[in-house]
């Protein structure tokens, strides 16, 4: 497939935003159980705004994927109608929902609103409840985003449960890395907690992403030129694709890069997403702000490469019809 930067930025940015929210709420749940020092509302308010900023950034990137930006206002609302069948529609519902819930989560912390649902002595019950709902929506959004790709069965590189695991773990890892950098400024006592989780999630993501790379390296495509045109002969060569100037079919489904470039992108993301951030996180364990920010920035850049590779590696069966001019 031809990697589109609107989708690359959409999926990576909302992944960071979702992961950062999960990091904030994980901390709040831990402190509710007295496992971590509790934080003032500022920590959650600024953190939610940061997460919201990444989600809005993803939304802006998504507009670039529409035919015209104006469709955002005139037509995109129809995107909520097909949730019964379309994972893209489900994503279109969940994305504003997550944004709204993250906004409310920050707002409730800001105003310090409180409703006591449970009798016993537990602070911040309203935000804990809201955070739980938001967490469910965040995981729903991870699944919906990944299922957009994993549900196309003939894009065999994508049609795999690992795609969903990768999206969730990579989003979570980048969000927790950002949370570590954020904590270095806002709450230094939490740096160790976030660094630990960021390293665990990054290594988990390495295992699942590595698994999908191994799977895709050995993939056997079901469709061949024989099934494409329905002629049972071992030797078939395309002589003409019916046009010489190129068309949508030759632009949208080919990445247009050399095999060597593809391979180098794979190694770039494998280095930038996993070992370098883990090393920087480990070095920044004692609160080195620059190191933790660098860990996040490098991991994010790596994720852009990772997503580019994710799209470029998928081989669409329609390419069987477009092999020779």
């Amino acid at each position, binding site marked *: 497939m031809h990697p589109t930067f609107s989708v690359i930025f959409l999926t990576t940015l909302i992944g960071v935003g979702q992961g950062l929210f999960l990091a904030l709420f994980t901390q709040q749940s831990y402190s509710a159980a007295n496992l971590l020092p509790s934080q003032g509302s500022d920590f959650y308010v600024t953190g939610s705004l940061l997460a919201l900023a990444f989600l809005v950034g993803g939304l802006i990137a998504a507009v670039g994927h529409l035919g015209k930006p104006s469709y955002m206002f005139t037509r995109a609302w129809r995107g909520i109608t097909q949730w019964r069948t379309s994972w893209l529609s489900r994503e279109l519902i969940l994305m504003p929902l997550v944004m709204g819930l993250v906004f409310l989560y920050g707002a409730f912390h800001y105003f310090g609103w409180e409703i006591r649902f449970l009798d016993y002595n537990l602070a911040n019950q309203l935000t804990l409840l809201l955070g739980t709902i938001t967490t469910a929506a965040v995981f729903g959004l991870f699944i919906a985003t990944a299922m957009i790709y994993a549900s*196309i069965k003939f894009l065999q590189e994508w049609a795999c449960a690992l795609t969903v695991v990768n999206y969730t773990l990579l989003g979570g890892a980048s969000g927790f890395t950002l949370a570590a950098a954020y904590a270095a400024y806002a709450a230094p006592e939490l740096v160790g907690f976030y660094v630990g989780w960021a390293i665990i999630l990054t290594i988990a993501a390495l295992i699942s992403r590595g698994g999908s790379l191994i799977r895709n390296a050995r993939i056997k495509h079901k469709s061949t030129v024989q099934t494409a045109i329905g002629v049972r002969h071992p030797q078939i060569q395309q002589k003409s694709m019916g046009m010489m*100037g190129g068309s949508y079919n030759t632009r949208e489904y080919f990445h247009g890069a050399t095999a060597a470039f593809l391979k180098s992108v794979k190694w770039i993301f494998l280095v930038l997403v996993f070992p370098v951030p883990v090393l920087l996180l480990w070095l920044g364990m004692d609160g080195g702000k620059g190191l933790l920010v660098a860990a996040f920035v490098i991991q994010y850049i790596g994720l852009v490469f990772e997503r580019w590779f994710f799209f470029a590696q998928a081989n669409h069966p329609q390419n069987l019809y477009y092999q020779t001019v």
Partner: protein
Amino acid sequence: MTQLALVIDLNVCVGCHACVTSCKQWNTSGQAGPMFDDNPYGKDPTGTFFNRVQTYEIGSYPNTETLHFPKSCLHCEDAPCVPVCPTGASHKRAEDGIVLVDYDKCIGCKYCSWACPYGAREFDEQQKVMKKCTLCVDRIYDQSLDERDRKPACVLACPTSARLYGDVHDPDSEVSVAIRERGGYQLMPEWGTKPANHYLPRRKTQINIHDDELTRVDNPLKKEDIRHETSKDVSLDDWLM
């Protein structure tokens, strides 16, 4: 349930591209507005087409065969492009099984084209919506046309009648008979899309003729024609005369 479709006879397609040009002509002049053409007479021409004719070579030289292969939307019975559309723009009509895009609802996200294994959909770079073969839906029901003209433009244009059109769910229709009796098949059956369009394979029109069928040993005409050497001996005829 009606399922309108095309059946394409690869045995008689000569690869003239008449279906391509007639399709473009009809659909670019249609109600849905022109189909995008960029730089049509310039250096890198490109544009939106609903139908293409491709050419394949089967076998290795000198034992090769050329196959001209027209490809348009197959109007799958279980069309994978329809459920993925977030806005409902991409739909399959219940009454005749034609898969269509509502150009007023499409947001141009291109997801349906990713979900089509055949590459049948093309994005219109001018209107910024996805377009595809409509089976000339604006023509086949047009009561102002003669009944014989109520067929897709490509079918009418084909000089060798390689394109048959009709209801593949009616067992007695021309297309169903052709599929049944001439080995009609579907493309990429492995994905379970159940394309409505079928293709008829190339066939060798040959009969086995043995030498003795051309030259009968017991042919009486031949027998009379066999000239023997005349005998020098006295025969019964000589004696009688």
